[in-house]
């Protein structure tokens, strides 16, 4: 059996800085018929597409350039009688797009545009007896939807309308023997699901239920020699997983366990020098154009420190909605170790994840934190879960315009911080 690890090789001549002009060209060409078709294909996630685009613009301080009223009117037209919101006009309501709609309205401080009481009713109605959430009336259960539900309600300040304890119980029942989470109890741990669950636990103030060291280790194990991240063991790296993994690590306060320089290098190497755009890994054909783009910019922001330490959800929105999303309290420096010389603050020594994940909650590997309260933590937990789990071939054409606009303002993007030292040894040497 081969000892070869599944990974990619980054060629020595792979792009090592952000090719803004190329991306501008790529997007300028986006108005062709082919891309219109891709646009229509993605109609079923239109609401999320709009949200991604607006997020990127807002990150870049360019939100005012978007057509605010038109978008709000669109959202209004997408709210159904049951209170749920659909991805587009004439589509059925779904929790994924309900969240995206609420997020957009929060960005625009226009929650009064739709009937939010009805939204709350819709979300509440999707909670099942075991605490889980269905995505819509057809009953698909997934921890993604648990996240959507609490994220929506947190933004509306209505978390108490659901049975939070039961919701937490269900999510914890999806914790696996490796510390990760899947979509339902017993499902394989997966970076995307882990993101949803850690975001959920952050929003419900239950991060202490995580085994942060174990999970943090599982997450940082996603990093391959090429610097890229995969979504589960023995899979190839994919640029989208960078987001799920990084965001999760951020929430649990372990983001420094990833080698950021190598990750940055990987992301930049995913660029297509000829056509512009990002592929899912170096050497692949550029697909999933703009959905990835939104993620890429978020990742690049993260990697190059463009975003604030608080993550990618605007502070203004957090303040307006009185949110204090939580991160795991960190271990503390060498001198300030919580358990230096001492016993754990309470409880028996760290227990491990149970065999049957649906039994009792986990204890810490190194028991230390009883109250994970921190300064306003990662807003990245609030980035729409719609980014995950959908297979769009592209996204809303508005994103095209957004990104084109944003690329024109490259002098604001501090590209110099992304330009790697030319003498960095290639990751290829290791492979």
């Amino acid at each position, binding site marked *: *059996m081969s*000892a070869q690890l599944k990974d990619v090789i980054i060629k020595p001549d792979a792009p090592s800085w952000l090719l803004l002009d190329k991306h501008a060209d790529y997007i300028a060409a986006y108005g062709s018929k*082919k891309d*219109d*078709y891709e646009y*229509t*294909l993605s109609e*079923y*996630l239109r609401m999320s597409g709009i949200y991604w685009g607006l997020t990127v613009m807002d990150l870049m301080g360019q939100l005012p350039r978007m*057509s605010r009223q*038109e*978008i709000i*009117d*669109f959202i209004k*037209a997408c709210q159904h009688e049951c209170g749920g919101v*659909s991805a*587009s*006009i*004439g589509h*059925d309501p779904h929790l994924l797009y309900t969240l995206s709609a609420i997020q957009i309205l929060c960005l625009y401080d226009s929650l009064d545009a739709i009937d939010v009481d009805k939204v709350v009713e819709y979300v509440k109605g999707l909670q099942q007896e075991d605490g889980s959430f269905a995505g819509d009336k*057809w009953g698909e259960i997934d921890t993604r939807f648990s996240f959507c539900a609490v994220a929506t309600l947190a933004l509306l300040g209505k978390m108490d309308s659901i049975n939070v304890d039961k919701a937490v119980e269900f999510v914890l029942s999806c914790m*696996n*023997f*490796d510390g990760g989470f*899947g*979509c339902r109890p*017993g*499902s*394989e741990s997966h970076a995307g699901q882990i993101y949803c669950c850690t975001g959920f636990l952050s929003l419900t103030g239950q991060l202490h239920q995580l085994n942060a060291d174990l999970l*943090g280790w*599982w997450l*940082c*194990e996603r990093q391959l020699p090429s*610097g890229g991240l995969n979504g*589960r063991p*023995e*899979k190839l790296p994919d640029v989208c997983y960078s987001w799920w993994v990084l965001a999760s690590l951020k929430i649990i306060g*372990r*983001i*420094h*366990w990833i080698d950021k320089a190598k990750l940055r290098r990987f992301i930049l190497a995913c660029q297509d020098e000829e056509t512009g755009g990002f592929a899912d890994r170096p050497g692949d054909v550029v697909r999933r154009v703009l959905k990835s783009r939104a993620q890429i910019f978020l990742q690049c922001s993260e990697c190059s420190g463009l975003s604030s*330490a608080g993550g990618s959800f605007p502070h203004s929105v957090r303040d307006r909605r009185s949110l204090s999303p939580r991160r795991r309290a*960190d*271990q503390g420096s*060498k001198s300030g*170790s919580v*358990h*230096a010389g001492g016993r754990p603050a309470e409880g028996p*020594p760290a*227990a*491990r*994840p*149970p*065999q049957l994940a649906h039994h009792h909650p986990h204890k810490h590997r190194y028991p230390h934190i009883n109250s994970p309260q921190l300064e306003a933590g990662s807003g990245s937990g609030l980035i729409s879960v719609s980014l995950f*789990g*959908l*297979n769009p071939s592209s996204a*809303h*054409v*508005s994103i095209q315009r957004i990104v084109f606009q944003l690329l024109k303002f490259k002098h604001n993007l501090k590209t110099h911080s992304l330009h790697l030292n030319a003498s960095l040894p290639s990751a290829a040497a290791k492979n």
Partner: protein
Amino acid sequence: IVCGVLNIDMAVCFCFRDRKEWADLEPVPQDDGPNPVVKIAYSEKFSDVYDYFRALLKKDERSERAFALTAEAIELNAANYTVWHYRRVLLQALSKDLREEMRYITNIIEEQPKNYQVWHHRRMVVEWLGDPSEELEFIAQILSQDAKNYHAWQHRQWVIQEYKLWDKELAFVESLLEDDVRNNSAWNQRHFVISHTTGFSEPAVVERETQYCLNQIRKAPHNESVWNYLKGMLQDRGLSSQPGLLEKVLELKETHCSPYLLAFLFDCYEDALENGVPKDSLDQGCQETLEKALEICKLLAQEKDTIRKEYWQFLGRSLQDRYGGEVSPGDATPTAPASEPQQIS
């Protein structure tokens, strides 16, 4: 699929708008809202099908032609969840043959196995039929094309749990692991099956599984999944509780080493320290155990797994804080805080 449609020879496109039996319907063009953010040109076939789909939806028409049209709409875009909803409504309203629907969804999944909608639809049909008899074989077939298809595994777990089809699953898992011992999905399934059947409390089960893991490690040492599984199985009772295991791991270290083995070894030492008295097989005092554990962290951070050096250094520091006193002289690693730096990195 994306480029293909544009090459359709429009002369032979038998569009709905040209069909006599559809003449009574007024097609509904795409509505992007009262003030469309962008104007778009759609491919003809796509807009034809979806214009008529929207017309049917508007009328809430429950007819055979509507049912037929959902298939066309799905073929153009199987991710459109509204179309699937509508198809299910029609399946029930028209009392369609669910066996035939099973054949239909089988074909669709074979073409597009990585799509949430298709698997959810299949599950609905299986539930309505109350007949899971085809499922395990079908899923096995999909897994033979991609042994890690996350949707396929979800569906499999649902079928097995819902209809109590546990009997042959461990054997199935083993055959997959024969094909690829690094298939993390299969290892997860192994845990799933055992935890829902015999459980992991019986010593005989634990012994058998431990042996199985060690054998797989010998075949392919660099395998995160098997080590995760082994640790996951043993961690509740404590890694050092399994007699003779540490010895075997130390043996393997000489010939089949990997970062995962070293991490496991660290966990064994940590467990021994945590439980107070080192077991006989350790044959060393606490201080020696601590030193060995710290050596492992250093080895991993500096040589064997440098990409995760922050993590290994953190582990070493934490262990030292808990059980140690002095910093060992060899430890020249910088004292980076375990906590995330407050400034933007």
